[in-house]
C-alpha cells in the first residue's frame, strides 16, 4: 500500500504506540470500525475491546483498551484510552491475579461501598481483557 496512516495510542500512563501503519481496527461503542489512510474526519467513543494494528493483511499488534475516544483527522488516527495494554506483552496469569485481587476488594467493600462502582468497572475490564487474551 502506498499511503500510510499515522496512528498513535496513548493512555494517561504512557504512549503505547506511535507510528505509520496500513490499517487499524478499533471497537467503537456503535460497532467495530476500520481506519485506512485518508479516512474522513470522524470521532467516536470506544468500548472495552481489542484494537488491531494491521500491516498489509497481517496483524502487527493487538492492544486492549478500556474505553476512551478515537479521533480521525487528516493527520491520522489518535486513540485516547482510559487504560490500555499490549496483548503481546501480557500473560493470563498476571491478569488472573489482578482479577482475583479486584474481586476480593469488591467483596471487602460490599455492594454499597464508595468504590464499588469503580471496582465493578475494573472487574469488567479485566474479565474482557482475559477473554481477549485467550483468543
Amino acid at each position: 500500500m502506498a499511503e500510510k496512516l499515522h496512528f498513535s495510542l496513548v493512555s494517561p500512563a504512557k504512549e503505547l504506540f506511535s507510528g505509520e501503519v496500513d490499517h487499524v481496527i478499533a471497537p467503537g461503542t456503535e460497532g467495530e470500525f476500520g481506519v485506512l489512510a485518508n479516512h474522513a474526519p470522524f470521532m467516536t467513543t470506544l468500548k472495552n475491546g481489542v484494537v488491531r494494528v494491521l500491516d498489509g493483511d497481517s496483524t502487527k499488534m493487538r492492544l486492549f483498551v478500556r474505553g476512551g475516544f478515537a479521533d480521525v483527522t487528516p493527520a491520522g488516527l489518535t486513540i485516547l484510552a482510559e487504560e490500555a495494554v499490549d496483548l503481546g506483552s501480557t500473560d493470563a496469569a498476571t491478569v488472573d491475579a489482578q482479577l482475583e485481587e479486584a474481586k476480593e476488594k469488591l467483596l471487602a467493600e460490599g455492594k454499597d461501598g464508595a468504590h464499588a462502582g469503580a471496582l465493578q468497572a475494573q472487574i469488567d475490564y479485566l474479565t474482557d481483557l482475559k477473554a481477549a487474551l485467550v483468543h
Partner: protein
Amino acid sequence: MPSLKDLKNRINSVKSTRKITKAMQMVAAAKLKRAQEAASASRPYAQRMASVVANLAGSMGDRAGGPKLLSGTGKDQTHLIVVMTAERGLCGGFNTYVVKEARSLIRKLATEGKTVKILTVGKKGREQLKREYSDLFVGHVDLSEIRGNDYTDAGIGLGHDITARFEDEEFDVATLVYSQFKNVLTQLPVAQQLIPAEAPEDAETVDLNGAIYQYEPSQEEILETLLPRYINTQIISAMLESGAGEQAARMSAMDNATRNAGEMIDDLSLQYNRARQAQITKELIEIISGAEAL
C-alpha cells in the same frame, strides 16, 4: 568570645545538620527522577486530549448551544480557585510562589467585586492562606497518602468534586493555580482556567480543508463524556508537574543548605583553631613570665 567547648559543640551541631540536608537532597534527587518520568509519560495523553478538545470546540462554532462545561454559565460572578501546593515544606520558595500567585489572583478578583471561593490541594498552601482567607475555603484535598506518583484516583476524585460543584451552580469559573515544572531549576507558578474548558492556545489543531467531522454517537454526547475527562486529565497532569517541581525545589534548596553548612563549618573551624592557638600562646606566656619572676 565563645569558649573552645562552645565552638566545638557548634561545629558538631552544624555537621549533623549538614548530614541531614545532604540526605534530604539525595532523597529528593531520587524522587525527582521518578516524578519527572511520571510527568513526562503523562504529557502525550494530555497534549492529544487538548488538541482533540481544541478540534471539537473549534468545529462547534457557536458555543452557546454546547454543554455548560464548555460554554460556561454565561456569568463570571463567582470564581473557584484551586490552589495546588505541596504537602511538605523545606523546599525553598516552592509553596510561597504558588500562594503568591493565588493571592494576587484573589486580590484582583476581589477588587473587581467578584465572589471568590478557595479549594486547596496540599497542606502547605492551606496553612499559608488560612490567615487571610479562611472564610473563603470550601474544601481541601489531602495528598499525603499518595505513594509513587499515582495521582489518578486523587485527580479523578477532585475532578468529580469540581464538576459536581459546577453542576450545583456553586461557581461560574474555576481556575487552577499550580506550579509548572519547566526544568530542575525553574518552576513557574501559573493560573489555568479549568471551567469553562479552554483548549490551550498552543494546542495543535488540524485543518480539515472544509471536510465535516462525523460523530458517533452525537457531538453532544461525545463532548459530555470528553469534557469531564479533559478536566480530570488537566488536574492529574498539574498534580504530576507540581510533584516533580516540589522535589526539584527541595533538591536545590537542600543543596544550598548543604553548601551553606559547609561554609559555616569552615568558618567555625578557623575560629576554633585561632582560639586554640591563642590559648596555647597565653599559657606559654604565663609559664615563661612565671619562670622569669623567680
